[in-house]
């Protein structure tokens, strides 16, 4: 234990990790929040699952229109624990969309979008859109009948945006038709562009401003990080 502490102090002195993580882990939780409090952290947890399983899947997935489906079949049927990994990524995506929705509904109903967190609400709406886009682009990567035709439906819908619609449709397809360039584009959107935007926007919401009475109660309860972690488990 002593050596662990020494290692941590060595690391922390060079990275200031505790200054970044400390306020997040130790922030006081208002009383009577219960399960309503954890959906933001649960969404983050689902996102981490998606990132980890997605990186693992990307080591075997071939983002080529001619081979993508076959590579997924190999992952599912032959790769060690491949079916489990795909299942985690698949259900994790649904879970993330669901949790984002619940988190936003909770935020709206409890008025948590008010001062000082108005901008967090705006960022949350952007993140909701990015999460939906992740789900959509990921669905296309299967490159089965559903994926291919969803691509065309997406292009048709993009094509109805006033003025720039036809350009958007061509950018989505990577050309004038669904072909070799299309899947590569969607792979780049799913793996690089949209995650980069999510990382750029993502940060925990600032803590609520507690009254002295609530703060005294909160200090007798587990900290936010402890509460989140225990409920995730």
């Amino acid at each position, binding site marked *: 234990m002593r050596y662990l502490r020494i290692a941590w102090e060595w690391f922390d002195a060079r990275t200031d990790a505790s200054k970044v993580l400390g306020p997040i882990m130790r922030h006081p939780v208002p009383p009577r929040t219960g399960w309503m409090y954890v959906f933001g952290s649960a969404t983050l947890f689902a996102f981490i699952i998606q990132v980890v399983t997605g990186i693992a899947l990307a080591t075997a997935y071939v983002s*080529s*229109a*001619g*081979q993508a489906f076959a590579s997924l079949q190999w992952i599912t049927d032959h790769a060690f624990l491949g079916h489990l990994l795909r299942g985690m990524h698949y259900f994790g995506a649904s879970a993330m969309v669901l949790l984002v929705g619940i988190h936003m509904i909770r935020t709206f109903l409890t008025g948590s979008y008010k001062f000082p967190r108005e901008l967090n609400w705006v960022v949350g709406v952007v993140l909701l859109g990015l999460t939906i886009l992740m789900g959509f682009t990921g669905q296309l990567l299967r490159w089965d009948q559903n994926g*291919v*035709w969803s691509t*065309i*439906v997406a*292009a*048709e*819908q993009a*094509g109805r945006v006033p003025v720039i*619609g*036809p*350009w958007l*449709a*061509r*950018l989505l*397809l*990577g*050309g*004038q*038709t*669904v*072909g*070799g*360039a*299309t*899947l590569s584009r969607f792979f780049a959107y799913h793996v690089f562009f949209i995650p980069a935007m999510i990382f750029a926007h993502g940060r925990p919401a600032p803590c609520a401003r507690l009254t002295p009475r609530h703060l005294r109660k909160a200090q007798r309860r587990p900290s936010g990080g402890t509460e989140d972690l225990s409920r995730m488990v």
Partner: protein
Amino acid sequence: MNGSRENLPGRRKMLARLSIGLGAIGAALVGLPVAGFLLAPLFETVSRKWRNVGSAAQFENGQTVEVKFEDASSVAWAGVTAQTGAWLRREPSGQFTAFAVNCTHLGCPVRWLKDAELFMCPCHGGVYYKDGTVAAGPPPRRLTQYPVRVREGQVEIMTTPTPIT
């Protein structure tokens, strides 16, 4: 020392502006090729090509069949997506009409129901008559038609971009 910009010594101010200028030039040198590469599909022109879909004699009058042909912009790694398709109808008069397989509502593939002589879209219930006009459902307009010709006894369809309606 006062740190406000107005009071910066002239040389420091000049160096600050030079750094910003050089940074902008560097960003442009990297950013412009990247942007050009990503936006290239907007400016590429794909020449349309006539594709042979079979001998005219193999298509019966009054019949509608699915035909497949190679897309104009296919690349080596396109796999099955190098192929595209159309519904080819031979009128009783012998004339040919080629319909896009895409529903004009949201682009889903329409199916030809031989007995009913209707095209039906599985996504939202769009229905078209055999001449491609809308019979029912949400499609805003008739099925897109591809140019088709008969040359030296062979039916040829011209490759066409995916119809964005």
